[in-house]
């Protein structure tokens, strides 16, 4: 086939567009995934993530754009490779295990039909290997899908898809249906399996924590376009716009005025990440960037505290209003309320005065119109 090892599993999606009736769901999505890499496509419901995945899998046909896998065109122009020829693994939201087959039969579904005792033995062995790969007991092979838990079903679905050793694995909200604790464990197992096997993976999720922890590349999708494609750290700390910032985590947004490489606002003078914006801006900080420090320059009074174990979210009203450097009076807002995070040992009673400082850079966005 002439596909070099460096190319095996490289996914290239270019300008993919798709409408359903009058509604345009994808408007020109471009994405690259390195061979063996993991990408998470994250976005709110209705942003078109699942449609993108289904286009890559071959269940739907795009209106425009191309999909190329391992240098081989799958869709685009005159090319159309149907789903069953694409060598792409697909794990649906609820696993989509065949209810009329046992777990072992499910896993063996995509394998060559075994005729003869030796071939059947070989299949059984392979099924056992796959179960082990996803950390499941080999005895599960005789059970039916409805007899195992949700997390186990997901892993069986993965094993089933892995049986064919695909070049690309697509996970469609695979962990969304699981309970919180199970979700993390399953995610870790699955991630490890795919990484060890070196299979290119694309995960679709609406949970930003999942996207940030699972993948080495995060693509934020909104309204049929990819707003930002970057590493998890970059996407979280340097979001490209306000909507992306707010989607990926809590954000403290403040009005500010840019002055050189810092901005002034109700928190005083804040260091700014490199930006071309000048004048009035909207400043974004993550709550964990605002620390309690008894020597900090910012003062505030606690309104209420939300203790949730490992941390608390503290809402306080800023009292340091008229600081030198806040030129415009409207910026120096007496009584602005912000939320900060603090570690569990600290529970502030209502009315306590705290002093704060800022860690790291703030991000500047264009001001709210």
């Amino acid at each position, binding site marked *: 086939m002439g596909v070099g090892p460096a190319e095996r599993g490289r996914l290239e999606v270019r300008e993919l567009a798709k409408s359903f009736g009058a509604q345009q769901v994808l408007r020109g999505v471009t994405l690259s995934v390195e061979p063996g890499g993991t990408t998470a496509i994250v976005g709110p419901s209705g942003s078109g993530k699942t449609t993108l995945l289904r286009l890559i899998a071959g269940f739907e*046909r795009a209106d425009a754009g191309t999909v190329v896998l391992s240098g081989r065109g799958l869709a685009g122009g005159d090319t159309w490779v*149907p789903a069953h020829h694409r060598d792409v693994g*697909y794990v*649906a939201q609820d696993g*989509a*295990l065949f*209810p*009329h087959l046992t777990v072992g039969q499910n896993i063996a579904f*995509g394998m060559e039909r075994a005729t003869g005792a030796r071939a059947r033995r070989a299949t059984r062995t392979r099924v056992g290997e796959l179960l082990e790969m996803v950390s499941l007991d080999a005895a599960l092979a005789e059970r039916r899908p409805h007899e195992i838990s949700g997390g186990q079903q997901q892993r069986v679905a993965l094993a089933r898809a892995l049986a064919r050793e695909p070049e690309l694995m697509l996970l469609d909200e695979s962990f969304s249906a699981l309970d919180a604790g199970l979700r993390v464990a399953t995610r870790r197992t699955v991630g490890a399996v795919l990484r060890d096997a070196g299979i290119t993976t694309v995960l679709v999720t609406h949970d930003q924590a999942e996207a940030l922890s699972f993948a080495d590349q995060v693509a934020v999708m909104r309204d049929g376009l990819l707003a930002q494609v970057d590493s998890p750290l970059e996407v979280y700390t340097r979001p490209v716009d306000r909507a992306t910032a707010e989607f990926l985590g809590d954000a403290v947004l403040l009005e500010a005025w840019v002055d050189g490489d810092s901005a002034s606002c109700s928190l005083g003078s804040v260091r700014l990440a490199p930006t071309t914006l000048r004048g009035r801006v909207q400043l974004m900080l993550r709550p964990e960037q605002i620390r309690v420090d008894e020597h900090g320059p910012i003062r505030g009074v606690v309104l209420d505290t939300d203790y949730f174990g490992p941390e608390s979210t503290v809402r306080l009203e800023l009292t340091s209003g008229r600081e030198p450097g806040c030129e415009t009076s409207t910026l120096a807002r007496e009584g602005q309320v912000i939320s900060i995070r603090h570690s569990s040992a600290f529970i502030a009673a209502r009315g306590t005065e705290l002093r704060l400082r800022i860690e790291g850079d703030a991000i500047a966005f264009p001001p709210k119109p």
Partner: protein
Amino acid sequence: MTTDLTAPDARRATVVGTAAAPGPGTRSGPASGRRRPPVLAVIAVLIALFSLMPLGYVAVMTVTTGWETASTLIFRARVGELLLNTVLLMLVSVPLCVVLGVGGAWLVERTRLRGNRFWALALAAPLAIPAFVNSYGWVSAVPSLAGLWSGVLISVLSYFPLVYIPAAATLSRLDPALEESAASVGLGPWQVFRRVVLPQLRLAMTGGALLVGLHLLSEYGAFAMIRFDTFTTAIMVQFQSTFNGAAGNMLASVLVVLCLLLLVAEVRSRGTARYARVGSGGQAAPGRMPLGRLHVPAQLGLLLLVGLAVGVPMWFVVRWVVLGGSSIWAPDELVPALVQTLLYGLVGAAATTVVAFPMAFLAVRRPSWFTRSLELSNYVTSSMPGIVVGLAFVTVSIRLFPSVYQTAVVLVAAYVLLFLPRALVSLRSGLAQAPRELEEAAQALGVRPFLAFVRVTLRLAAPAAAGGAALVFLAIVNELTATLLLSPNGTRTLATQFWAKSSEIDYAGAAPYALLMVVLSAPMTYLLFQQSKKAAGQ
């Protein structure tokens, strides 16, 4: 005539089974992505048109008869008599059936009735006895049985299971949380029943009532035996006197109008409220209340009901069999009748399931106003009495397709038309268990689309398809009027032989046929009972 007991609930069926409803972002569209030629849609449309044929026949007949003749034939005293009989019969029988059905269902599903598993099945058992066998048994017991009240007696005893079965299935799936919340607001048990439980039973009650009404309108044998005149008996009499005369056709058109009125009434009374659980979380099993002092009366009441509905006819059938001795078991008559009944039943069931498939597939995979109206046309036809369908086929085949006239093809086609909805309902719920996502998963695993369809979807829908086929089989075994009209020369089925013998008051001779019909129907009734429990509440 149809017993699509699951129809009212299944019409709202969404995707069930291990797969959740299609996730956000998925749209229903062609799975392969290619623009497939609408073969399925065309086939479905053809089938729908075919199934509207009896209605078209009645309309054409009415028009060609001319208004003058038609009005003299329709607006006469006899029709008034028939109308009065029919309306009175329905007004009395249907509410009785609903009360007995719901009451029985409640006793069995929601109280600590002893032996409730036995009673659950016993209350469904009358369905295994065709109404005309029931009548035969009662006429043997009380020969002077005649008139409206006898008609009511036979109707109620034969048809109350049509309300009982969906009601029981719904009650067993009710969410106790609703009743508990009502109780916590201060409503007493009777009020809770009236304001919380009954509204949820609405679908079962209106659907069951509709079925009872339609069966009443189309029943012939049972009422003929007790000298109770309804439209259907009068049409049959006209047919025997004039074969295809105008008078009979006019009666048929009035009958059709009555059926359509019933349909409309049922649709209206169904209401628009949602009956599925709103909100997440699992559902506990509903609680059972103790009966206390009412326990013994309840047991006695149920015993009386089942005794009258099953005990009396079966006792007399067996009695006639015993009285008749060995002479009534004439193998050269009995065996051909049995074999032909079985063959027609099997072939009819298979044909109906196959014909139902395109429409069921469209309804589940590509729901739209188009598929819904296709289903509606089927539903309308299913309410046509067997005699009207028979008349329609006779006329159409004589005039347009003489080569198939009086052949098995026409009879099987009539069965398909009459019982299509039963197969449809079962197939639909079966296909709902096999959502498109499973086929796609199979394709992603490298299986060709057609093979994926066969190995996954067909395989998953097969049990439900078999269940639907079994129901059609049951219906064909018990069908009398269309068979009398359409069967090819020399055909004998158990039902027609039974009818021939009992018409000559050779009750002993008719007994083996009655017995065989009940024996054939019993397993299918059991299946119907089981299937409706699964489909309810979804």
